[in-house]
């Protein structure tokens, strides 16, 4: 750690990991409710558990992005953070808002939460992923503005690197597109159309800039490859991401009442969306192969390579699988979508946050470069357990989705939804088992922070 103010990243990373645990526990509840329908009913109905699962995911990724930003921006800008006190204050506000919102989901019925937070003054609740009470959304905007101000001022007063500019651009985009969450027209088609301006333009747009910038930063640090080379790759990757991804939004406009030309625009452009992820994989492996030094933090390198591969598989391959309109006509809104969503979020965004945590946390905790061997080996176990478990979750959901699509949509005598659900229950059971393995990996991940803390740092091997 080169600048004192980078230390503000630490609480953000810790909060991210705690919310990650909550997310996975509620994921397991959901998985069980798929096969034991009355599990925790009516105390925690499926929709409530799902809100907790998806909202904690989004919030912990945001904590991770903010922590990553506070860590890398001062180092890139070669200056202290503009206002560390503001970063600390915003941390507590964001954590309190997140905690109160999750408590609200769990303690009162959703309609009551809407009533006590006065949703009717500015109705924004009850849309997928954007279920937060309006007051929470306003809080998110306030936190985002203070955060962008703090980071922007730091970038302005310091060295301007491509990593910092791309990251800042991604973060500004994140804040700007979130504003569409306040637009909830009565017209369902318009409502859905602009809902995607938040959801799609986040995860298949500006978040990819954040992902690219963090990955580039970590690769510069661990490989020692010339910054010029890495920055050129970064530009190419994010150029492809936005060129394909913006019009690629069209793959959500096939069946929601929007004109049918979107089937062409969406199919063609989103078929190209795997390209930036493929480039990212080539990039990460290339840089590691051309490394000028062997960084002692081997597990951070593993996470960085893992991110590139899993993002390509989850977002690229599993996205492509059902993005062409004639295929999507049958798979739209089935377990195929769920399969893609799980692996894409894990591969692209969960893993990039775990990458930067893996790189930065040893330094934030006073190590000079890396954790002890013992700790790194345990973290590598957690990497493999979580990643392999996610691969199996995705495969089982894909199996469920193929059967569901066939039985309910394609076969000559289509069967009702609930009848089909019972027929594919075996896949849901296997998914749940894979989910338990994922939790085991997460437990090992957390343990890796506490083992071998007194052992010496892992040694550096010379480049062969």
């Amino acid at each position, binding site marked *: 750690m080169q600048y004192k103010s980078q230390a503000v990243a630490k609480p953000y990373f810790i909060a991210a990991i705690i919310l990650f645990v909550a997310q996975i526990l509620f994921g397991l509840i959901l998985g069980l*409710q*798929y096969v*034991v*329908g*009355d599990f925790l*009913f*009516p105390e925690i*109905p*499926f*929709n*409530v558990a*799902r809100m907790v699962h998806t909202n904690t995911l989004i919030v912990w990724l945001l904590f991770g992005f903010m922590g990553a930003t506070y860590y890398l921006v001062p180092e890139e800008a070669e200056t202290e953070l503009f206002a560390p006190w503001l970063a600390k204050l915003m941390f507590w506000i964001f954590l309190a808002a997140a905690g109160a919102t999750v408590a609200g989901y769990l303690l009162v019925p*959703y*309609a009551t939460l*809407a009533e006590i937070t006065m949703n*009717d003054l500015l*109705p924004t*609740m*009850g*849309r*997928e992923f954007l*279920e937060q009470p309006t007051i929470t959304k306003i809080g998110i905007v306030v936190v985002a503005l203070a955060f962008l101000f703090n980071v922007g001022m730091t970038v302005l007063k310091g060295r301007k690197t*491509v990593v910092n500019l791309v990251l800042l651009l991604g973060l500004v985009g994140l804040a700007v597109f979130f504003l569409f969450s306040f637009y909830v027209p*009565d*017209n*369902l*088609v318009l409502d859905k*159309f602009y809902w995607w301006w938040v959801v799609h333009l986040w995860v298949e747009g500006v978040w990819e800039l954040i992902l690219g910038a963090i990955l580039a930063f970590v690769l510069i640090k661990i490989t020692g490859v010339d910054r*010029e*080379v890495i*920055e*050129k790759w970064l*530009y190419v990757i994010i*150029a492809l991401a*936005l*060129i394909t991804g*913006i*019009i690629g939004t069209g793959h959500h*406009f*096939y*069946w*929601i*009442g*929007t*004109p*049918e030309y979107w*089937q062409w625009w969406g199919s063609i452009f989103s078929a190209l969306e795997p390209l930036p992820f493929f480039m990212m994989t080539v990039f990460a492996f290339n840089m590691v192969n051309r490394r000028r030094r062997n960084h002692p933090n081997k597990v951070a390198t593993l996470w960085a390579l893992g991110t590139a591969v899993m993002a390509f598989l989850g977002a690229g391959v599993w996205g492509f699988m059902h993005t062409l309109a004639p295929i999507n*006509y049958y798979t*739209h*809104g*089935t*377990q195929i*979508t*769920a399969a893609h969503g799980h692996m894409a979020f894990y591969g692209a965004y969960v893993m990039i946050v775990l990458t930067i945590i893996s790189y930065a946390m040893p330094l934030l905790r006073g190590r000079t470069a890396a954790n002890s061997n013992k700790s790194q080996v345990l973290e590598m176990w957690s990497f493999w357990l979580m990643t392999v478990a996610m691969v199996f979750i995705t495969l089982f959901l894909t199996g469920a989705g193929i059967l569901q699509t066939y039985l309910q*949509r*394609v076969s000559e005598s*289509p069967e*009702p*939804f609930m009848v089909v*659900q019972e027929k594919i229950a075996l896949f849901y059971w296997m998914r749940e088992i894979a989910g338990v393995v994922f939790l085991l990996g997460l437990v090992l991940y957390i343990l890796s922070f506490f083992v071998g803390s007194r052992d010496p740092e892992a040694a550096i091997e010379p480049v062969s």
Partner: protein
Amino acid sequence: MSGTFTKSMARNIFYGGSVFFFLLFLVLTFDTTQALPERDNRGAITPVVVRGKMLWEENDCIGCHTLLGEGAYFAPELGNVYTRYGNSKEAIMGFIKSRPVEGIPGRRSMPQFNFSDEELDALAEFLKYSSEINTANWPPNVQG
């Protein structure tokens, strides 16, 4: 990727490409907005439908169901439930009304929301309006 392809070329492709395709996206959005009145069944959006949509949102129905294929995959698609239930609002209202408070042992069950008759009617009107949006023949069949 070396030699003649420089970093500034890559940067220009990024800025140029992003701006161009975002502007194209805005043009398509404008055209979509022009075309929507023919497709989105806006003539049917009465105050009762608006009330129904509000109830749909304030009870987080999307947390279990899909609507036009978007939402959660735990419970049936509702964009076409009106036609699936034989074009009957009463059937929809009857189903919602009759959900057991304690659920069904071992099975998935919709919660009992204790809606008033006026609220049930608004929800059914909202689902009827949704079913009449032109969705390019999606879903493939009545099962949703």
